[in-house]
């Protein structure tokens, strides 16, 4: 990884950046961090891009409203040239304007249409009222007096008293009708007469646009005051009032006029809709391409905003991090960009820079390793150039998961699920993008696949398929008790020793002496003491694999030290760590293997309890009392004492070693610098060189040959702070080293013991999983399968549903998640604390592909 400077001609800059974006392997640095985003050079272009995006979003919502399909582009459209941008802007403007116009027109037409529809219904209904009134003249207003007979046909009716009646017709929503009536009655003190008729079909309200049931009403009143009151009430209830002529002829003419206008409007409306559809269909074909193009333009201008505009030399200066191996491709891209923008101009220049800063960490990944790298990075991104644990985690994580999950049947289900996701990768990639749970599962499909495959293997070794065992090779155990013994006792324990060790003649060999070839013997599935037996082997295995993994982690730290040329760290940190681990824990592993191979059933009571022996070893107590605590090989006491003393020696070795080394280094440097008498200003650079001279000549070779190592030599960087600090202040720095070393020492030594015990969760979770599986069998599936006859068949059918759903939800999902989490913790804490620093920051290249992939598809 090297820091580069790019000198770009302003005209060529755009196309060069476009080419680099397609390439996607440089990370640009912001050279104007203090500049407000509104004061940057290309802020106008960015604003124009945002405006274009807004218009595209509007077009997209309109297309979605009409439920037209949007076509995804097959190929990746290139970022358009700056001239094309203006064309795109014009196109979007035109489309935007057109669509807005269509929409407003359509709205206005629709409102008109609805009003006319209401008017039409109004006229039809009131026609009915007036007809009724003519045929049955009824005097309805009781309080006026019976002598008045009204012809409810008009505004004026001559009565005996010569009163005039006015009326108002309108349309009101049906649900408000009752309240409307009551209000009218109360306000006008019963002096108005209301008739209503419901409109049978749903009408779209002109104002609100919703479809409602409405009622036509006609209100008759006398006098101006009442008229005002009625009008106010109508307004309050948002009833639409329509004028209705008194004359029947005029009414009929109006009705016919309304019908004609309605027909015309229907035609116009449908034509407007067609036009809209055509515009949107044309747009939908290009929409995605335009969106991609606009995104690319915006990204390019954002990047260009980060550059430094050198006015004097009339060029743009950019700084970027780039992997050294890709420099050729970057040069090629720059040349392409310069040619594309206008042949003949001076091509852009790439210049490598020397820096002391820590570069970003870049791992080359593919779709398979990306998931595992995410798991590691979630804890911490690797420091620049340190060992990436991912290739090892790739196998050990699914393996440890499988040790805890250990059921071949469940493993098969998990593998099938993962295989489906992997084989259907292409089609599933963009589905359900906004469902977070699905994206998590899909992103980890390779992890789940490996977890499933390993689970099948561990399930075979545990001999556990949906809590049942398979007997493929024939068990190594036989029942050789006589029938009378079996009749006398409720349960029998088979004889474990494969030869006659008793003096008496009633020994019968029940164990063949050869273990079951693959995994656990099937007889144990029937045994009451199965758990006691498997506890022993699972715990031992958990300890063995744990200590092995921790030892492996230590060796990775050795590899790190060798790479960074920290020779002192090898002797002062790695050696005490590995010796401590070996003395106590590798010795424990040896004891485990010894016990497995040396003690059989005949010596069962004398078999040593390894845990007691470990505790006694540390406490230096060697009793002979219970046989399980007595020494079991000659020289055990002396050897163990020696091991413990050696282990204890490692503690001060690690605690004091590194700080004392630093003190010695300080003294040497201080002497050397005073002797050679340098000026204060250049001290740091010169001191680096002198510091190099103290180390191996191998380093010097590194300095001369490979420029990259010198550019970003981590050794220089990591020691840089120390040397600077040592140069300035001795006191603070040394105490910091002491404290830090104290913390590391305590963390390591206490951690050794606690992490070893922590690996026992491998046993605990596998036990829990096996027991849950067995409970589901006994309590659910067994009930159905053990019934006889046709009832049994039906019961089996019904029992399958709860069994399968509990298997999926509890055993696969919940236990799977639990085992995943614990395996991850074992890696993050127990394994990685032995060697991993994780203090880097990720390399995020300027890449169009990344940009477009990240954009979530709006649902």
């Amino acid at each position, binding site marked *: 990884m090297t820091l580069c400077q790019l000198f770009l001609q302003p005209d060529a800059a755009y196309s060069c950046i476009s080419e680099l974006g397609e390439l996607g392997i440089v990370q640009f640095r912001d050279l104007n961090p203090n500049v407000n985003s509104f004061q940057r050079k290309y802020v106008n272009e960015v604003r124009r891009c945002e405006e274009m995006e807004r218009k595209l979003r509007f077009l997209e919502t309109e297309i979605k409203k009409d439920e037209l399909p949007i076509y995804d582009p097959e190929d990746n459209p290139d970022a358009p040239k700056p001239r094309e941008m203006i064309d795109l802007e014009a196109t979007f403007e035109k489309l935007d304007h057109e669509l807005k116009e269509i929409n407003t027109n359509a709205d206005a037409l629709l409102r008109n249409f609805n009003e006319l529809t209401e008017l039409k219904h109004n006229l039809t209904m009131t026609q009915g009222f007036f007809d009724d009134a003519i045929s049955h003249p009824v005097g309805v207003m009781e309080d006026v007096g019976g002598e008045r007979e009204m012809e409810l046909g008009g505004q004026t009716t001559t009565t005996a008293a010569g009163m005039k009646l006015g009326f108002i017709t309108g349309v009101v929503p049906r649900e408000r009708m009752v309240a409307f009536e009551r209000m009218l009655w109360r306000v006008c003190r019963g002096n108005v007469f209301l008739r209503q008729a419901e409109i049978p079909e749903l009408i779209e309200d002109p104002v609100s646009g919703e479809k409602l049931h409405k009622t036509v009403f006609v209100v008759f009143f006398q006098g101006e005051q009442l008229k005002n009151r009625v009008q106010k009430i109508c307004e309050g209830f948002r009833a639409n009032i329509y004028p209705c002529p008194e004359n029947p002829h005029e009414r009929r003419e109006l009705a016919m006029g309304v019908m004609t206008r309605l027909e015309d409007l229907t035609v116009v409306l449908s034509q407007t809709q067609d036009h809209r559809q055509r515009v949107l269909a044309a747009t939908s074909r290009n929409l995605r391409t335009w969106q991609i193009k606009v995104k690319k333009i915006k990204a390019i201008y954002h990047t260009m905003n980060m550059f430094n505009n050198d006015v004097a030399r009339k060029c743009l200066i950019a700084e970027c991090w780039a992997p050294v191996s890709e420099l050729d491709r970057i040069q090629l891209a720059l040349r392409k960009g310069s040619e594309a923008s206008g042949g003949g101009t001076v091509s852009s220049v790439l210049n490598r820079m020397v820096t002391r800063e820590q570069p970003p960490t870049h791992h080359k990944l593919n779709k398979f390793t990306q998931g595992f790298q995410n798991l590691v990075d979630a804890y911490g991104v690797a420091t620049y150039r340190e060992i990436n644990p991912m290739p090892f985690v790739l196998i050990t994580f699914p393996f440890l998961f499988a040790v805890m999950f250990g059921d071949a049947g469940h493993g098969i289900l998990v593998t099938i699920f993962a295989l489906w996701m992997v084989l259907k990768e292409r089609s599933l990639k963009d589905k359900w993008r906004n469902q977070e749970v699905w994206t998590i599962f899909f992103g980890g499909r390779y992890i789940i696949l490996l977890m499933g495959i390993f689970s099948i293997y561990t399930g075979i070794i545990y001999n556990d398929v949906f809590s049942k065992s398979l007997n493929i090779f024939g068990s190594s155990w036989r029942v050789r008790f006589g029938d009378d013994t079996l009749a006398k006792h409720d349960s029998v324990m088979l004889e474990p020793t494969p030869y006659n060790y008793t003096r008496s003649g009633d020994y019968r060999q029940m164990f063949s002496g050869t273990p079951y070839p693959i995994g656990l013997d099937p*007889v144990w599935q029937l045994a009451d003491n199965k758990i006691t037996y498997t506890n022993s082997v699972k715990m031992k295995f958990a300890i063995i694999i744990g200590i092995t993994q921790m030892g492996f982690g230590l060796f990775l730290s050795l590899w790190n030290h060798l790479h960074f040329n920290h020779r002192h760290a090898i002797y002062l940190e790695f050696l005490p760590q590995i010796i401590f681990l070996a003395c106590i824990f590798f010795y424990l592993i040896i004891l485990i293997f010894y016990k497995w191979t040396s003690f059989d059933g005949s010596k069962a009571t004398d078999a040593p309890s390894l845990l007691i022996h470990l505790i006694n070893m540390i406490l230096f107590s060697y009793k002979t009392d219970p046989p399980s605590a007595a020494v079991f090989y000659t020289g055990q006491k002396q050897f163990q004492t020696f091991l413990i003393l050696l282990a204890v020696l490692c503690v001060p070795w690690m605690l004091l070693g590194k700080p004392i080394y630093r003190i010695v280094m300080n003294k040497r440097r201080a002497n050397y610098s005073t002797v050679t008498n340098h000026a204060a200003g250049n001290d740091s650079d010169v001191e680096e060189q002198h510091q190099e001279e103290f180390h191996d000549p191998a380093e010097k070779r590194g300095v001369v040959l490979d420029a990259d190592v010198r550019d970003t030599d981590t050794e220089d960087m990591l020691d840089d702070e120390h040397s600077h600090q040592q140069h300035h202040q001795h006191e603070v720095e040394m105490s910091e080293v002491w404290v830090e070393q104290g913390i590391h020492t305590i963390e390591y030594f206490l951690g050794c013991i606690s992490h070893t015990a922590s690996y026992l969760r491998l046993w605990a979770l596998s036990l829990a999983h096996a027991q849950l599986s067995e409970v589901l069998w006994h309590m659910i599936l067994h009930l159905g399968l053990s019934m006889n006859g046709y009832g049994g068949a039906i019961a089996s059918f019904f029992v399958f549903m709860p069994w399968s759903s509990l298997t999926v939800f509890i055993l696969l999902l919940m236990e799977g998640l639990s085992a995943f989490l614990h395996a991850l913790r074992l890696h993050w804490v127990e394994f990685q604390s032995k060697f991993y620093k994780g203090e880097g920051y990720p390399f995020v290249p300027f890449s169009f592909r990344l940009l477009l992939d990240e954009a979530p598809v709006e649902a």
Partner: protein
Amino acid sequence: MEKFSISLIVFTVFWGLIGIVLPFLIPKGPHRRLIQTMLALTSACCWLFWLCFYLHQWKPLFGPQISSVDARALKVLWGQDL
């Protein structure tokens, strides 16, 4: 003793082939190192797992405790010959 070592040899050779021999046969390519690491680690872990279970059952300190009903069934189903 002989039958014991047959399985031991078979499985050690099997995982040894996968973990030690096969990595040398992986063709050169960008993923060579990764595949080699995967093969070696897989075979180491799987072999170790199998070995622990195999050794633990070689000299058991106690036998399975079976209910008499199951024991009678096993007598019939599995016979008496070891």
